[in-house]
């Protein structure tokens, strides 16, 4: 049975919206017109609406993470282009890793390389998720 997790990452969504909003605000600030109050408010409203729409698109294309897994393997897609698919039996060790920002990831080791599953970003309980991944890796190893 396949499981999919793709929660909205509010921090990254807010960041995307703010990037678009600041870009528009800079354009408005350097434009030498619009001294009327009504025009200013209208521009602000238009900026906010555009920021939300384009920010959402930016978030989806850069940050939105979709994690799908079953008993055989998993796929982690970040944004529109960054897609990684692996089989559980490609990995030998599992650990729980804390990043500098304090987020927890489940780290999978393959020889000297490793691949991180961002448990905190996926809003999964890192401790139970680590247990589940460890089980999946060991079961798939035993199948070989």
């Amino acid at each position: 049975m396949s499981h999919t997790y793709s929660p909205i990452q509010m921090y990254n969504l807010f960041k995307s919206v703010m990037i678009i909003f600041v870009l528009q605000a800079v354009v408005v600030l350097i434009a030498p017109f619009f001294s009327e109050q009504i025009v200013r408010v209208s521009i602000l409203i238009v900026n906010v609406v555009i920021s939300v729409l384009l920010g959402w698109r930016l978030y989806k294309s850069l940050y939105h993470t979709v994690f799908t897994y079953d008993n055989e393997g998993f796929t982690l897609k970040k944004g529109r282009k960054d897609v990684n698919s692996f089989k559980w039996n490609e990995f030998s060790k599992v650990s729980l890793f804390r990043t500098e920002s304090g987020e927890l990831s489940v780290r999978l080791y393959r020889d000297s390389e490793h691949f991180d599953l961002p448990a905190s970003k996926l809003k999964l309980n890192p401790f139970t998720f680590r247990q589940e991944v460890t089980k999946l890796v060991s079961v798939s190893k035993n199948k070989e």
Partner: protein
Amino acid sequence: MLGKGRWIADFTESFRNWNVNDVTFDVFIQGNTRMKGFLLSRLFSATVNPNYQVGCYIISADRAKDIDRKSLLKMLHAVKASMKENEMKWAWLLILCAKAADFQKKLVESIKDQAVGIALVEVDSKGIVSSDSYIGKQARRFIKL
């Protein structure tokens, strides 16, 4: 992880059932001695703390119930091998048990290795016996039961 403790290192990665040389530790955590934090903490840590890789190996009562000199030395050698592999400077070996025999306590106290601090923790009585080294004695300070 639940309970109390003191800051001894910035541990970033933990493994369950860590196997080295036929010894399986219930938990192995690794990190370094540089404190993370905001500007002042980082500055303080960069000027005061050495940047050493450190680890903590924990073995629980079930696996540690038959501790004798041979098994303790086997654990110590496994820790040393793992330290070498992970380029660690210091490590702690915590042995958790319900109740330890007197000869086991004396055994732990007789270990003088300066790179590995060993602590035998009696969970029921909350007693801690450590090896005869600086970091072994430090373990008594940071373990809070």
